């Protein structure tokens, strides 16, 4: 069942491609800054957090601005996917109600469109890394692996949220707050090493932590993530994707009737 829905997704890749292009176009059409806006968004966040933590609170983290950016870009991809994914089925109602439409396509489009945004941010990240004189090496070759795992993780979670939101319409509202808490509980604006020993368990419970830490290790410290962390990311990615597909397939047939 899960395999067949994955195969279905692959067979509809032309449709996904059109919808992603459309999604990105719609996002930038009509705004003066257009595409630049996506690039400004993480930079604005970076600027504000850098001011808060590096200047006001005098955090001792080296190269704080670029440290922030390493975690912020993946986080924005992740959280924006969930936020938009939560309403993707309800908003796609006109398609689902009138024709046979492969519902799996809708959350996939959301995650993919945000993934493209993330990719557009990567050159900026590298510009900053170079500006700050960060030395990068072979560990960078692991980046695609981490991105792929994060894609699976994000997609799986978006499937779940999208399906459940059709039945519980207040989820999109709660989700915004929940993601804010999740953001601050992830080592994005502070390094994981600054978390006191007695609070470390919070990091262990957070499935986003291995991803942030891996990005930071690879990009900032020229370190290979440990095989344990790599295995963890792979397990989280595949596990959540599988759960997400199961949940989504379970609710799939109620969409046309519930919207």
């Amino acid at each position, binding site marked *: 069942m899960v395999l067949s829905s994955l195969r279905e997704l692959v067979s*509809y890749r*032309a*449709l996904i491609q*059109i*919808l992603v292009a*459309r999604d990105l176009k*719609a996002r930038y059409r009509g705004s003066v800054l257009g595409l630049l806006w996506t690039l400004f968004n993480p930079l604005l966040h970076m600027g504000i957090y850098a001011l808060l933590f590096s200047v006001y609170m005098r955090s001792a983290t080296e190269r704080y601005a670029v440290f922030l950016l390493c975690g912020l870009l993946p986080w924005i991809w992740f959280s924006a996917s969930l936020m938009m994914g939560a309403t993707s089925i309800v908003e*796609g109602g*006109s*398609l*689902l*109600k*009138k*024709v*046979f*439409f*492969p519902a799996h396509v809708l959350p996939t489009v959301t995650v993919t469109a945000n993934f493209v945004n993330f990719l557009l941010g990567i050159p900026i990240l590298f510009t900053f890394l170079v500006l700050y004189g960060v030395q990068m090496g072979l560990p960078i070759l692991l980046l695609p692996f981490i991105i792929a795992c994060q894609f699976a993780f994000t997609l799986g979670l978006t499937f779940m949220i999208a399906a459940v939101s*059709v*039945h*519980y*319409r*207040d*989820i999109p509202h*709660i989700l915004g707050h929940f993601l804010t808490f999740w953001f601050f509980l992830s080592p994005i604006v502070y390094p994981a090493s600054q978390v006191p020993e007695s609070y470390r368990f919070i990091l262990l419970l957070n499935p986003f932590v291995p991803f942030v830490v891996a990005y930071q290790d690879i990009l900032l410290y020229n370190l290979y993530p440990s095989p344990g962390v790599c295995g963890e990311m792979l397990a989280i990615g595949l596990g959540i994707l599988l759960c997400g597909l199961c949940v989504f397939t379970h609710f799939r*047939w109620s969409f*046309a*009737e*519930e919207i």
Partner: protein
Amino acid sequence: MIAVEVENLSKRFRRQTVQPYTTIKSALVDIFRRRKSTEAESFEVLRDITFSVKQGQTLSILGRNGSGKSTLLKVLAGIYRADHGRICVHGRLGALLDLGTGFHPEFSGRENVFINGIILGLSKKEVRQRFDRIVQFAGLETSIDEPVKTYSSGMYMRLGFAVAVHADLDVLLIDEILAVGDAAFQLKCSDKIAEFRQHGKTIILVSHDLTSVEQLSDEVLWLDRGVIRERGEPQRVISQYRWDMVGPEERTGLPEHH
């Protein structure tokens, strides 16, 4: 050869009150009240429907409002899932339901043609090859790049119909679309339907226009409150249906059928 086969099909709906969806709060309240909301409040829209359509035939479905016609088409189209029974379709099936026909209002006509074409089973390349013919058939050359939300209902439907007739479908489900559009386009549609039939395609049609139903169909199926009341030769079923539609006091003067 049989093109569409339906066996013992049943479909239930949840009865929806003011608030059609649940919130987490109302779900919690339900748990505390130990009430299971779905089972008690569902009702049967289609009950034990069995029929088949031979390849190349046109079947029309008649019935009053709320008799389950549209639901039946939606189940056949794969939008709803049947609760019981079996549906078997040989060949590629596409549906033209309501006016929306699955367009995204914010997208341009062009984008919707591609989306719709792919959903109906064409590849991107095939849509591109047929694109000009589709737009020409719909008569939308000047407005194809505008968002479809600016289209009139006639334009909406013309575009939907244009994509569907160019999608190489074997089985076509049509719901009430012949009633809209101007006379010229209606003629175009009837011609195209006739052409479809000549090419041996199968059509399942829902319409309230009894005259065109009589002209177009090989067989008529009369749905009444979710069950098949009558099925057979168009002329006979239609006159029985007409008889049933008028109230008992107006029946005097009409020929008796039962």
